[in-house]
């Protein structure tokens, strides 16, 4: 062995069965892989986040386009879009001193310092914790609420499902449901993203006469105004959507806000 060579070449020249070489190669491969993977993740993150945000905005816009009469209402009110408010979920009051654009609900839900734990018996959507505030998008005309768009999220079969639920002015009828993010089984659960399935939602009622939230994705064909046809082969994804809506429309979700909106308006 030539001792004048650099230590690295002497290391490479070691026998492949030598323990130093085995550990060394394992360490070097792991180190280089870790550097490559983490730099890719960090360098590309801004682009990926931009794509995700653009997608969310595009889906919101697409949902509004699909709503009947939406274009007329927007033209009439002169607003080009909905107004976004930040709502304190516990009280149902609008938070006046925070800009909704600056509030990152996902980060607030993940941060133990700000997150609100969801009691296990109320945690239908399997979220464990949520942010204290949530952004809601409201369209008003002459001081009357025409449309409310609520961001909702829950646990499906294989992934977190995120969606936007639009309610009509009575706050009890679905105007639209748009899935904004999901990672369910391709070809089965992932079909909740299909426009044909989402087109089943407008006109569904969220609560029965006693005020109980009963909206559900059922197996097979829907038989009442509170039901939406399930997707065959995706029962658990359907249950995930049901639980997501029941949690967010319920007492621990947007329930207090919707009650207050019904009584007092914005």
């Amino acid at each position, binding site marked *: 062995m030539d001792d004048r060579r650099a230590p690295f070449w002497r290391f490479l020249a070691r026998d*492949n069965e030598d323990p130093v070489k085995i550990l060394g190669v394992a360490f070097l491969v792991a180190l280089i*892989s870790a550097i490559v*993977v983490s730099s*890719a993740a960090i360098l*590309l993150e801004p*682009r990926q986040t931009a*794509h995700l945000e653009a997608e969310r905005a595009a889906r919101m816009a697409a949902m509004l386009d699909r709503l009947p009469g939406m274009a007329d209402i927007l033209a009439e009110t002169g607003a080009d879009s909905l107004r976004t408010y930040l709502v304190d979920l516990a009280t149902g009051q609008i938070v006046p001193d925070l800009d909704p654009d600056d509030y990152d609900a996902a980060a607030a839900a993940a941060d133990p310092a700000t997150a609100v734990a969801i009691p296990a018996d109320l945690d239908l959507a399997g979220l464990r914790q949520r942010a204290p505030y949530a952004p809601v998008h409201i369209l008003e005309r002459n001081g009357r609420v025409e449309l409310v768009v609520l961001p909702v999220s829950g646990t499906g079969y294989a992934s977190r499902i995120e969606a936007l639920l639009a309610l009509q002015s009575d706050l009890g009828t679905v105007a639209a449901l748009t899935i904004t993010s999901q*990672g369910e089984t*391709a070809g089965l659960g992932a079909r909740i993203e299909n426009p044909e399935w989402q087109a089943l939602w407008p006109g569904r009622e969220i609560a029965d006469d006693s005020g109980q939230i009963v909206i559900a994705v059922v197996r097979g064909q829907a038989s009442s105004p509170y039901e939406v046809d399930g997707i065959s*082969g995706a029962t658990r994804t359907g249950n995930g959507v049901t639980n997501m809506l029941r949690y967010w429309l319920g007492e621990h979700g947007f329930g207090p806000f919707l009650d207050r909106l019904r009584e007092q308006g914005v």
Partner: protein
Amino acid sequence: MPKGLSRITAPLIGQNPITRQILGVCSALAVTTGLDTALMMSAALTSVLCLSSAIISLLRNHIPHVIRLIVQITIIASLVIVIDELMQAFAFELSRALSVFVGLIVTNCLVLGRAEAFAMRNPVGPSILDALGNGLGYSLILILVGSIRELLGQGSLLGVVVLVPVADGGWFEPLGLMQLAPAAFIIIGLLVWAIRSYWTDQAETTAQATPGEQVAR
């Protein structure tokens, strides 16, 4: 035929990774509901296969035998993550359509199989050619199965309507089964049967161990 060329052409049918060596079938079932996802998956797998074969072949003299599988998997997994991140940054729509299956290239026996059977023992040039050939062989089957499933299941190819379905006033009744995983099993089974009936030397006899250079399944 020059040796380099035969490394690319042999895995197309004679040593096809899916129909002959029965490798990488899992992803072939999952991503072939449509032609577009099949094409994207083919491109992703072929590039991972070529890159991993090149890197592993470069390092082959310095990978200790006892930890070779761990080293190979680490390299393959890192490449797959980087490709997945790149797709999410630059081909967002397609990466959405493929969802988790790009990440699952790691578990594709084909990639590890070629690394272990070929790249560990051969110089960089032949290793890349072998990887390219196997990638193309895999792509060929994926594209075939993807076309058949999209055509019969949705009446379209690459999203363009070819057979007008009944729902839109046409005559074609889409076969729902084609969009489910069992259809891919059936089509791949029929393909294996057709290929082995035509090239009878591919058929396995019970007495004889399978020839060829397969290692991992």
